């Protein structure tokens, strides 16, 4: 493999990183309403560039390399694009374009309207996030990756507080401080690796690294730091307020894209840089946290009163799925033999989540804009008022459940096969059960929005059709992702007939289990009649919380108590002290498990 000279098409990688930043600087210079124009010129260019990189990668049939200034590592730095990087570049370009179309209604500055600071910042930050992510995907060494991650954080944090209210500023500050904590740990790990092996270039390091204390320490520190930035449970301290409080167009960027950067780096570290250092037991811990994230995130999502917070907690749960692949990269003997399937599944899941979750956040924002609120209990009639947005939300949810032919379905299928092959039956349970948890909040919202309102909805504000279509487009992309995957690199026999008895049975079981969970854990009974009159007065202080619990059966009372317990546990874990202690404990645990699990 040509790793030490630039390949054809390598310069495209540099262009993909540079273009968004050039656009951003141009936007700062031109200022005002020009920023949006720059962004709209940039988006098709960036998309074309991503397609160009994909074409070049297919033509070359190998990793694309670009040596900056012609200096080869270890002295110089290289940009490299392998399969995963190309897939993510393409997916991010697509999602950014979708979000850009959506944001035109919220942050557009038509002639005659005074330009606002929020709109100006939004377009600049969108371009910055894009550039930083492209750098994360193509960076060839761990230090450039550190810089890229910091750029991503600096671009992501202001997106949280675009609205400028005290609550969002606080959320942004918590996010920034906790992310900085994580990045110092990452940098410490990178420095230790440099001390041990004298290089930070990924292929050179992968050759040099051996399972020994310095590598274990470095991997443990870097993993813990990156988990803090990805907000994997129990380090999700900043995610719900940040993603729930930001404007919809910004939440979509944060939830769909920003967290994928640090996740991608965990994937790189474990599968590409240090496959020989990672141990099965540490991978089990990583996926164990993922399983806990799925359960806690989904249950707390069901307990939310506001649609945007439900979607934010759904992100907490979905981050869990992204980490289930790690133990399934190992075969029964503890060798990383199933690496490729695990990697493909992880990327599919990440892209499926990026597209579906962007669509869901946009849909939630549109519902808020049209109804003037997003209280889940008062969504009756929303489906009739906003059919396209509601459809986008539900399609996104169904895609995340892993119904054929969504990307999540294919990811689940690959992981189930790996779990069978390596005899790790417990992950089969988690994978199958997780879908039911996702189904639960999809069913909950479906029931709420399809209900007939007690009084006709009045005072609806019109929302942009373009925005609704952008949301639906992204959600549909997630639902059709596996078709694209088998048309591309994956074998076609992975997709079964969706109407075959087995698949249909699976899907129906998922929905049934989801309905069961939703009716057990939701705040109000699943099929309770729509509330009458001015409902806003009721939930100022949770006054009608769990209404009807007293006169319901023993089972419902028990499950509601359980739900409340989950909420309290979540609130406790999201305190600064618990979260930072969890971070340290996790770093220590990873170190210990890497040590114990090392081949003797």
């Amino acid at each position, binding site marked *: 493999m040509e790793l030490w000279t630039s390949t054809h098409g390598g310069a495209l990688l540099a262009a993909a990183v540079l273009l968004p930043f050039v656009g951003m600087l141009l936007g700062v210079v031109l200022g005002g309403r020009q920023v949006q124009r720059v962004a709209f010129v940039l988006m098709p260019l960036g998309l074309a560039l991503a397609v160009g990189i994909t074409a070049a990668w297919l033509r070359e049939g190998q990793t694309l390399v670009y040596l900056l200034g012609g200096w080869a590592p*270890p002295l110089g730095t290289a940009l490299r694009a392998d399969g995963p990087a190309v897939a993510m570049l393409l997916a991010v370009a697509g999602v950014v374009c979708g979000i850009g179309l959506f944001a035109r209604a919220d942050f557009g500055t038509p002639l005659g309207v005074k330009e606002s600071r929020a709109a100006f910042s939004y377009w600049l930050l969108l371009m910055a996030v894009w550039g930083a992510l492209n750098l994360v995907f193509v960076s060839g060494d761990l230090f450039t990756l550190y810089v890229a991650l910091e750029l991503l954080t600096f671009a992501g944090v202001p997106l949280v507080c675009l609205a400028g209210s005290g609550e969002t500023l606080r959320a942004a500050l918590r996010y*920034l401080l906790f992310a900085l904590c994580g990045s110092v740990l990452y940098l410490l790990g990178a420095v230790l690796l440099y001390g041990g092996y004298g290089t930070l270039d990924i292929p050179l390091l992968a050759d040099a690294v051996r399972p020994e204390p310095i590598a274990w320490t470095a991997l443990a520190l870097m993993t813990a730091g990156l988990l803090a930035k990805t907000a994997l449970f129990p380090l999700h301290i900043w995610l719900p307020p940040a993603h729930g409080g930001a404007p919809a167009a910004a939440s979509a960027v944060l939830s769909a894209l920003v967290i994928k950067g640090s996740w991608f780096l965990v994937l790189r570290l474990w599968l590409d840089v240090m496959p020989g250092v990672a141990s099965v037991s540490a991978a089990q811990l990583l996926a164990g946290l993922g399983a806990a994230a799925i359960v806690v995130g989904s249950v707390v999502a069901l307990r939310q009163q506001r649609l945007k917070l439900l979607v934010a907690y759904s992100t907490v749960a979905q981050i869990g799925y992204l980490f289930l692949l790690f133990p399934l990269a190992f075969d029964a003997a503890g060798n990383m033999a199933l690496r490729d399937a695990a990697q493909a599944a992880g990327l599919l899941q990440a892209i499926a989540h990026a597209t579906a979750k962007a669509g869901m956040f946009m849909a939630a924002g549109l519902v808020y804009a049209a109804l003037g609120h997003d209280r889940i209990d008062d969504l009756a009639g929303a489906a009739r008022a906003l059919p396209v947005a509601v459809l986008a939300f539900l399609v996104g949810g169904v895609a995340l459940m892993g119904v054929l032919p969504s990307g999540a379905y294919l990811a689940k299928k690959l992981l189930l096969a790996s779990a069978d092959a390596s005899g790790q039956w417990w992950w089969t349970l988690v994978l199958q059960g997780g879908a039911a948890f996702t189904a639960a909040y999809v069913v909950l919202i479906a029931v709420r929005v399809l209900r007939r309102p007690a009084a006709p909805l009045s005072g609806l504000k019109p929302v942009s059709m373009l925005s609704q279509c952008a949301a639906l487009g992204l959600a549909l992309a997630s639902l059709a992702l596996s078709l694209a995957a088998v048309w591309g690199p994956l074998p076609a026999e992975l997709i079964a007939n969706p109407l075959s008895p087995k698949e249909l049975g699976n899907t129906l079981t998922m929905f049934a289990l989801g309905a069961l969970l939703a009716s057990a854990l939701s705040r109000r009974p699943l099929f309770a009649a729509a509330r009458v009159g001015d409902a806003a007065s009721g939930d100022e202080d949770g006054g009608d919380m769990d209404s009807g619990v007293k006169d319901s059966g023993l089972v419902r009372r028990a499950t509601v108590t359980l739900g409340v317990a989950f909420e309290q546990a979540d*609130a406790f874990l999201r305190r600064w002290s618990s979260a930072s202690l969890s971070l340290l404990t996790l770093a220590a645990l990873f170190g210990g498990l890497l040590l114990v699990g090392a081949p003797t």
Partner: protein
Amino acid sequence: MSVETLFALCACALVGIGLYGLIVQPHPLRKLVAFNIMGSGVFVLFSALAKRGAAAGMAADPVPQALLITAIVVAFAATAVTVALLLRLIESTGTASLANEPPAGD
């Protein structure tokens, strides 16, 4: 004890103090100072490694110097962003408290 070992031990102490501060200090400004102390620990460690000449068995390794400068700039930028956010927070709420927002879902 060689100079490098002394440097490395100092780095450990700085990282430890920084971590402690990040966890127990409630005020965001103190957390920020703690982050900077922790960062300094990492930088000291890196310069000790440079003295050891880790890369090619040279007398001293120049690459960490270049990386360090970049890392310091990044830490500086992080500090600036945090202070700016903190000032905005005080401007709009009158306090600098990071205390948990009222239970999610209000």
